């Protein structure tokens, strides 16, 4: 008995959706996550990957099916169906993508908010004196987290980042430390204030899922909370000259104790000690 095509279509559609969901959930294309917002990012990635897989496999499947099923056989010279349109069908495939896109948009807005992206940019809360006329552009980051953290008693660790051809320099106001490698303690919010000396650079830590341009003349901020100890690369992601590819540095996420040790050993001796 031939299976009615409606049922066949339904079954195939369900298999497609389930397969897409499975692939999205189980195939991991991302490096380890090492900051508070990285798992949130990965959640968005999995959703987008699932939807994308379903759409892609579905459309490619339809094309292959059509090419095989409706190919012209030798001697066939007549035309296909004189089908010029079908209003319900067109309404359907306008509405479905619109709904999918709307869903994706709302969902990623939620993700964005959970990452702290919608918090009004901090004016003056980064302890600079010349703040009046200066605009500080904010990167996506957990400004929100760092504010809650502040109220919870853990003040964010401020670091000033200077980017230049072809290196990043890190300055720790507490202790007046200057370093070519970034050290941060695990699970403590960090607040970067970044400025470029010459051209535009971009500060990117793939494992943190964070990137922010470092712009000459317009300081930017980037807040995050590292969650996994280890050593990760800091990559410059904006073409900045011949050695752009070599403009790499690293961030060491230390345990709280290790970080204190590092801080102590690098701290400039105060006048009393000297």
């Amino acid at each position: 008995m031939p299976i009615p095509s409606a049922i066949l279509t339904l079954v195939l559609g369900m298999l497609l959706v389930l397969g897409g969901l499975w692939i999205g959930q189980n195939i991991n294309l991302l490096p380890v996550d090492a900051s508070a917002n990285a798992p949130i990012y990965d959640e968005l990635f999995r959703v987008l990957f699932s939807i994308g897989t379903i759409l892609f496999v579905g459309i490619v499947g339809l094309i292959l099916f059509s090419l095989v099923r409706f190919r012209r056989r030798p001697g066939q010279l007549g035309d296909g169906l004189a089908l010029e349109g079908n209003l319900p069908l067109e309404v359907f495939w306008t509405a479905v993508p619109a709904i999918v896109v709307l869903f994706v948009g709302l969902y990623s807005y939620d993700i964005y908010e959970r990452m702290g992206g919608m918090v009004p940019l901090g004016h003056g809360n980064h302890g600079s004196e010349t703040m009046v006329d200066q605009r500080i552009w904010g990167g996506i980051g957990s400004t929100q987290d760092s504010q809650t953290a502040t109220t919870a008693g853990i003040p964010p660790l401020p670091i000033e980042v200077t980017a230049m051809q072809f290196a990043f320099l890190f300055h720790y106001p507490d202790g007046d430390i200057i370093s070519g490698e970034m050290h941060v303690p695990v699970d403590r919010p960090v607040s970067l204030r970044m400025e470029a000396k010459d051209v535009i650079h971009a500060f990117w830590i793939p494992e943190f899922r964070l990137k922010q341009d470092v712009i000459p003349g317009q300081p930017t901020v980037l807040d995050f909370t590292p969650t996994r100890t280890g050593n990760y690369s800091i990559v410059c992601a904006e073409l900045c000259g011949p050695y752009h590819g070599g403009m790499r540095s690293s961030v060491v996420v230390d345990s709280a104790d290790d970080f204190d040790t590092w801080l102590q050993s690098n701290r400039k001796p105060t006048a009393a000690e000297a």
Partner: protein
Amino acid sequence: MTITAPPKTAPASPSLQPTGWLRYLSFSVDHKVIGIQYLVCGFAFYLIGGAMAGAIRTELLSPVSDFMARDVYNQILTLHGTVMIFLWIVPVVNGAFGNYLIPFYVGARDMAYPRLNAVAFWLIPPAGLMLISSYFITGAAQSGWTAYPPLSITTPATGQIIWILSVLLLGGSSIFGGINFIATILKLRRPGLKLMQLPMYCWAMLGTSILVVLSTPVLAGTLIMLSFDIVAHTGFFNPGMGGNVVVYQHLFWFYSHPAVYIMVLPAFGLVSEILPVHCRKPLFGYTTMVYSIMAIVVLGLVVWAHHMFTSGTPPWMRLFFTIATAFIAVPTGIKFFNWLATLWGGRISLNSAVLFSCGFIVNFVLGGITGVALAQVPFDVHVHDTYFVVAHFHYIVYGGSVFVIFASIYHWYPKITGRMLDEHLGRLHFLLTFVGFNLCFAPQHWLGLNGMPRRVAEYDPQFQLVNQISSAGALLMAISTLPFLWNVIASAFHGAIAGDNPWRALTPEWLTSSPPPVENWKGDPPLVTHPYGYGTPADEIDLNSASGSDLWRSGQ
């Protein structure tokens, strides 16, 4: 489908045309000659740009910078991007096919402004040669095809200025072309031919030309300001002098995002011409296709800042541009579903033109999906300026526009030369291109997600294997041009004679001889009011023996 005797209003061509192959080197005003000039010239630049891509992929075989000096790498990278966009895709999908086809489609004997048309073409070779020769004379620009200041202000000035001059010339060329297309489509239509009866490529070119005319002048103004910053030390974009580097980005992307649609809308139009013929079905959903083109034009103008999510744009702006960008997926999706419906229930002949068209659909779907993902700010923040974006836009421009250019050459070659291309070589060409393309660009998604930034000559050694796979794909793509080149050259002399209408197509260019005479038709242009009327009873007569024009005279 009606043909009536036309009143004699078609404009006469302004001058007699030179004959023989030398006319392709002349200031000809025949739209067909100009179309071929665009096509051949564009293809020459494609080979040059492709050689540069080969050099880039060779450098990336190893994680260290060993094949060429670092600043040379950046020059080659800048030239590659500029050549491919401004000298290959834009001139070919607009200038070449637009010139060849639009006058036929509106039933005219030439473009509205034939001399302006020739000027528009003849700006291109000198601009291109100037751009490329800068590499040998003073060193080319090295700040990428986006030329962001302050890098473009601080790198060696001569190369950068030459880059600006040639992009200005190319921009001028495309504005002239755009004006000409708008005038031709709106004003030279044969009496009796309504807008909603035009072949879809006319609509695509109308939309594209609107984008060209609105956005290219912004690029020109921006580049002129940039050149002032470089040579006259003004401070528009120089932070050292109080300039704002982000303003440049806004102005630049106000042109360069629409430029994306300037490259793909005509490609959409061309596919809409090719599929119905070889599926022997009407183009599905003509009206929605037209509206979706116009929706893409409008939306395309308001999404530029999605290239600037990490430039420190304020949150509200990111939100607006996310939503606007994602919504382009709706009209784009409509077009894709309509093509699928055109395939459905057809009598599809699986020839090279169809294979490249379907290859285009597959590739562009993937590029579109990653595009919607990139539109989401949180997603983009991680992958912006990485190889993920490189993969995305090559799926769009190569997988989209270039595949369609090849499909179009297979489709219109018989009309242009009067001879057929070899199908076996064509399928070999498709197979090599499709496999090579996916091998080259698919792995780059992974590279970007895992930490490889774009525009680098050296990278983390953990990415070496995947880069080598990608380079192997590039090699395959390079090899794939050989059967194609052999095919187009050899078939011009030895190909089977095509006849006027080998595909039994219904659009007007097929209703004249192959190649068409000067002034397009021996008699009066036919009035084709239903370019996609396949499957209607009139066509059930033996199409195989009737030549196109016979069909039209006898058919109603």
